[in-house]
């Protein structure tokens, strides 16, 4: 297999409403930043891979067609990926696949969402005939799984508050993050209104506008650039309403993580991975994913969170950038995880840099916790 690395990550400022830009302007902002970081010009880009969540968010059908000019794809191959919430991650995987296949040397990949164009709950689940009025939004869908996790392992309620605080404190070190909440603490979180019990307002992700782009190139073209080597990448899916699924600890997540660890030669992720950007849209998904991804045994995830193992200076820092809890342009949220992991091993994460990070993980999930995309990036090729 041809070895590939990320040589540039570009992000927009994330905000509830990026009304200062068009959709094209939004994606171009991320692309310009990625290409500047990668020090590449347009003629170096062989293909463009675009990802985003459902077209109904913006009311533009198959937007790679409209965005061809904005993403600099005219005259080039372009692919549009849509794998629900995991799309930012799977788009990164597919972009890297373009290079690893040997067909392309350097590719640009970009993902975005401009949620302010519509309303997320409406766009995700418009009402159809014959279906009852049960829809309670994404939080309403995931809250029962969270409740079951809490019941199964007897987790105390402050764990959710703790993640909400930790991620938002990290976000204060990331100027691009959507939510900046100075002085946030567990009391502030626990005082916010209950939305979908057991989830309170500040235990949920925001709805954001934003875009994230990366430039990925093959080993022979990296030159003297800073690079995050892709050591392992994988996707896994399972059917939505499949008998025997465990939504609290999905098999697809377990298998996907094992696949990337095997590729990267990792046998003990807790020890060998220096930091991770994991898709945590609701606070409790941090302990749930700690277990699902094999950082600890079942039932031990909340204990790791409780003893600050996931803090930026902890044993296994999670979401140093502030994570999905602080910025959530849905289609881009997965790629932000992948890109932030790359920034860490390139030593370019600025104020939210984990000291001496050499190996990092990026993770995304979507649908009914059924689509997974993950990668491991490293500062060295060996």
């Amino acid at each position: 297999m041809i070895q590939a690395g990320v040589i540039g990550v570009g992000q927009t400022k994330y905000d509830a409403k990026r009304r200062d830009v068009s959709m094209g302007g939004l994606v171009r902002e991320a692309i310009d930043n990625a290409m500047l970081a990668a020090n590449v010009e347009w003629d170096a880009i062989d293909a463009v891979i675009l990802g985003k969540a459902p077209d109904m968010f913006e009311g533009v059908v198959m937007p790679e067609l409209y965005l061809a000019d904005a993403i600099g794809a005219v005259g080039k191959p372009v692919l549009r990926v849509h794998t629900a919430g995991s799309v930012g991650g799977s788009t990164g995987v597919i972009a890297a696949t373009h290079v690893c296949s040997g067909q392309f040397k350097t590719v640009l990949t970009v993902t975005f969402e401009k949620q302010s164009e519509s309303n997320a709950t409406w766009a995700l689940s418009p009402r159809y005939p014959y279906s009852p009025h049960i829809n309670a939004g994404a939080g309403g869908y995931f809250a029962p799984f969270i409740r079951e996790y809490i019941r199964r392992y007897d987790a105390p309620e402050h764990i959710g508050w703790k993640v909400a605080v930790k991620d938002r404190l990290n976000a204060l070190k990331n100027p691009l993050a959507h939510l900046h909440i100075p002085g946030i603490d567990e009391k502030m979180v626990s005082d916010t209104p209950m939305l979908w019990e057991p989830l309170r307002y500040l235990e949920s992700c925001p709805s954001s506008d934003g875009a994230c782009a990366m430039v990925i190139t093959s080993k022979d073209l990296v030159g003297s650039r800073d690079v995050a080597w892709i050591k392992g990448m994988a996707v896994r899916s399972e059917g939505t309403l499949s008998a025997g699924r465990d939504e609290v600890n999905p098999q697809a997540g377990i298998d996907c993580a094992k696949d990337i660890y095997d590729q990267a030669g990792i046998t003990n992720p807790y020890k060998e991975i220096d930091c991770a950007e994991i898709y945590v849209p609701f606070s409790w998904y941090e302990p749930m994913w700690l277990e699902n991804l094999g950082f600890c045994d079942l039932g031990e995830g909340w204990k790791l969170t409780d003893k600050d193992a996931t803090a930026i200076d902890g044993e296994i820092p999670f979401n140093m950038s502030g994570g999905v809890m602080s910025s959530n342009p849905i289609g881009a949220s997965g790629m932000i995880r992948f890109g932030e992991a790359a920034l860490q091993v390139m030593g370019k994460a600025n104020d939210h840099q984990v000291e001496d990070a050499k190996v990092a993980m990026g993770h995304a999930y979507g649908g009914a916790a059924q689509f997974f995309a993950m990668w491991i990036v490293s500062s060295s090729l060996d």
Partner: protein
Amino acid sequence: MSDQKDLLRAPFELAYNYKRSSGPLMSKFFDALADQKILGTKSSTGKVYAPAAEFDPETHESLSDLVEVGPGGVIESFSWIEEPKHHHLIKNPFAFALIKLDGADTSMLHMVTECDEADLKIGSRVTANWSATLENRITDIKFFTLEK
């Protein structure tokens, strides 16, 4: 396959008023429509794109140099609709046309009406007609008609 007659069918509608924010460049284009002016963008190669393109498809550069074009122009191609369908904005016979506005190197897709199909040719000159109510949208240009 179950019998078609037993099948449950029901209409539904996907309806939403999307909120389009047009960014620094296109917002100038839409603001200019209120003054009955049409703007294009000039690229570093000197090519003028109208309506004002944000990005040059050839050089990939972001465009910012605005120039006024039109309101007259030449039909580059068109399709003629004798019987408009429900989604069409004009209910009388009309054309969708690519119109190269004076001063531009590219064409704008819009509608041409108040004429017969036989009156239209590639090369016909048309000019913009303006909507009475302005919404900061492309429909502020109501349609084009043949130049008198």
